[in-house]
């Protein structure tokens, strides 16, 4: 299950606990000096990842600059059943964003 920038793998276990692993393609650049010119380069990083279950917010993750390139985030959701929709949305500090809906099978 993918969108241009979000991949998600959802494993529904016993008693409604779903393990969600999501990989977001993003450079996650920190504010730093250019090694050649010494100029200060701006940061470019995801500020917020929000995860919803059937439209209701389940977890939101606020990131600093020190989250690694192409963030791989995993967590567990409770009371999930087949047919539910897990939505994943991110927004970065330069106003870019992406969102995807991932059905639970």
């Amino acid at each position, binding site marked *: 299950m993918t969108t241009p920038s979000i991949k998600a793998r959802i494993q529904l276990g016993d008693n409604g606990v779903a393990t969600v692993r999501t990989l977001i393609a993003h450079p996650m650049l*920190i504010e730093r000096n250019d090694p050649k010119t010494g100029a200060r380069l701006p940061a470019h990083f995801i500020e917020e990842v929000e995860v919803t279950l059937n439209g209701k*917010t389940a977890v*939101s993750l606020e990131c*600093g600059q020190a989250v*690694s390139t192409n963030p791989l985030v995993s*967590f567990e959701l409770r009371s999930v059943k087949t047919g539910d929709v897990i939505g994943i949305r991110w927004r970065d500090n330069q106003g870019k964003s992406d969102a995807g809906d991932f059905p639970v099978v």
Partner: protein
Amino acid sequence: MKRRDAIRNLTGASLLPLLGALAGLTPATANARVAAAFEAKTTQEALAALFPDAEVQPSEALTLIAPDIAENGTAVPLTIRSTLENIDYVAVFATGNPWALTAAYKLTELTAPPLSLRVKLGKTQDVVVIARADGKLYSSTRHIQVSVGGCGG
């Protein structure tokens, strides 16, 4: 420094009056507080911005799973586990990074630890996880040795 001392310093420093100046600048809304915490350079400043006057206590019920030695600081896998109930907030601090606050989870009744993500660590340092459950703050610290720093790009 011993782990316990580090925690004690952390909690003690959050009460220091020198942070009063910072608090004066901190806007009242939760979002602005979080933004200020991410801007803060040190763990103490970030902690004071996030949780203005709460006391943090080390807890065995909260564990941070991470490698003792990270070959490459650009992607150090962290996993947070806990047996605490009703956790609604989890913050990860890399004490030796230029900006200490690395990530903050807001949890609802639909989620609970384990949580995992990968972070950049600039040098060998302590990583502190603080979780809020039923209004109380609990912490867990782990020392991670970094062979190659991860803040170059």
